[in-house]
């Protein structure tokens, strides 16, 4: 099973990754290599509308493979400022490049966003190892 965990990203227990895009609090969100591999070939991705305000942990996107569908939860609170439109016609990008072309959406996080709740790459790796036991 595919399991690439880049060291410069943060992670959640529900298998989202978070990338800091600007120091002022804009973040990019996607699902991990482990998650895309577990779901199999994705056929549909639904992302939130731009402008939507999300709570931390709110279900806000759906990734669907031929025989499974899974919610994606917002890792932090914030407002959706950009979405990856290309996924509507090319959901396979999520399988091919989960940390790059397969990004889902960008959030503008407020000062209240609790980034400390996220896991480091090594913590996520330990978490995955625990989960697979």
């Amino acid at each position, binding site marked *: 099973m595919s399991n690439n965990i880049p060291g410069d990203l943060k992670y959640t227990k529900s298998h989202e990754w978070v990338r800091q895009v600007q120091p002022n609090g804009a973040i990019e969100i996607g699902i991990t290599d482990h998650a895309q591999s577990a779901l199999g070939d994705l056929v*549909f991705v*639904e992302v939130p*509308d731009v402008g939507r305000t999300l709570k931390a942990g709110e279900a806000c996107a759906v990734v*669907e493979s*031929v*025989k*499974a*569908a899974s*919610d994606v939860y917002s890792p932090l609170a914030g407002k959706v400022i950009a979405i990856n439109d290309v996924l509507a016609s090319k959901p396979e990008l999520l399988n091919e490049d989960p940390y790059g072309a397969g990004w889902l959406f960008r959030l503008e996080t407020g000062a209240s966003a609790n980034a400390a709740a996220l896991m480091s790459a090594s913590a996520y790796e330990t978490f995955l190892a625990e989960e697979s036991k």
Partner: protein
Amino acid sequence: MAFIPHTSDDIARMLEVIGVRSIEDLFDEIPAALRAGTLSVPSPLSEMEIGRLMTERAATDGRPLNFIGAGAYEHHIPAPVWAIATRGEFYSAYTPYQAEASQGTLQLIYEYQSMMCALTGMEVSNASLYDGASALAEACLMAVRSNRSSTSRRILMPRAVNPTYAQVAQAIAGNQDINFVPVDFDRATGRTLLEALKPYGGQDSAALVLQQPNFFGSLEEVDALTDWAHANKIMLIAVVNPTSLALLKPPALWGSKVDGAQGADIVCGEGQALGVPLASGGPYFGFMATRMQYVRQMPGRIVGRTVDVEGRPGFSLTLQAREQHIRRSKATSNICTNQGLMVTAATIYMSLLGPQGLEAVAQASMQRTADLIAALAQVPGVKRAFTAPHFHEAVLLLDRPPAAVLAALSRRGILGGLDLSERYPELGHALLVCATETKLGVDIESYAAALADVMGASRAAA
């Protein structure tokens, strides 16, 4: 023999694990007064005995001349429809659980879906739902999920929509926080007017329900109402009679084209008219179709055409990630009951009739209803209630309560229509009547003569 796989040892062990003394203790939550106790069920009957009992009971219905429509319609069903539908290969009520092993069943459902898309003009149909009323409830839930411009969970429900459908939608969707707002109809035409919708313009509503023809048989001005809904970012749910679609504009073409999109967003209705007998109210089947953009929010099974590893054509269930075995509590439907056998009959019915045959049925039904209304409106004390054009149903106003008149007609073997005075007291002594192609000129004449007689007799007696 009891079909219970557990031995008494198994049961004792399971009870021990969960810490309960007896199976009876599991029902302690239910007050004793509410328990059924011993069921009073007669002992089993032989095939001969049950046949005799059912024949006797069926005979008590007589063979009435039926002029009641109101959602279930008596059409001629060609003999091959049920001769084929009851063949062993088709005679099963459900889509099979190992669906792809039953290519014939899947092909039939695929053909059905294709025919419903052709009739409604929509892009995708599901494999059917429970009945017309629950299909509307599902359509309302689907609209609330699909309309991204709306957060209100509010549905505009005209009073000219079949009141039983509105009641079922309220019972199913009302308990899921959906708020139904009634919209009044015009007393002169029996239509839902744009003016009645205007107060809701600029407000957030998820959907407008529009029935065509509506419950009174009146033809709604669907183009103007559809455009109003879309201009207000409200989805349009069309409730249609499939027979009428052989003559009327398909819901996909209602209204004008705006940003490349046109027509109803969700189409649903009752499929019984397509080869399913009245049978005292069921089983029937519901249908639903939509645009591809909303397909992931549609409930029910969908069959797709595909190719196998060797490139040969085949059929499979598709878009299953909407369904309960995958989505669990977030599935798009909690009623996935597929009326497979009824759909089989409907598919055979539509195949046998073809577009021209269905058009002939619709044409004849419309003509017979026009003849019926003309004949009945000549009876003293009877007039038409509404001026709007109708399809195969219309409302009459009597000069006295319909109940006694209907009872007198019934004694003469005529089911004279549906009394609307309880559902719509503001209409007065209103009676909804329907004639399909099954009613010949002589039938219409005998109804008119009986009505004149019944009403004249009671007038003379008074």
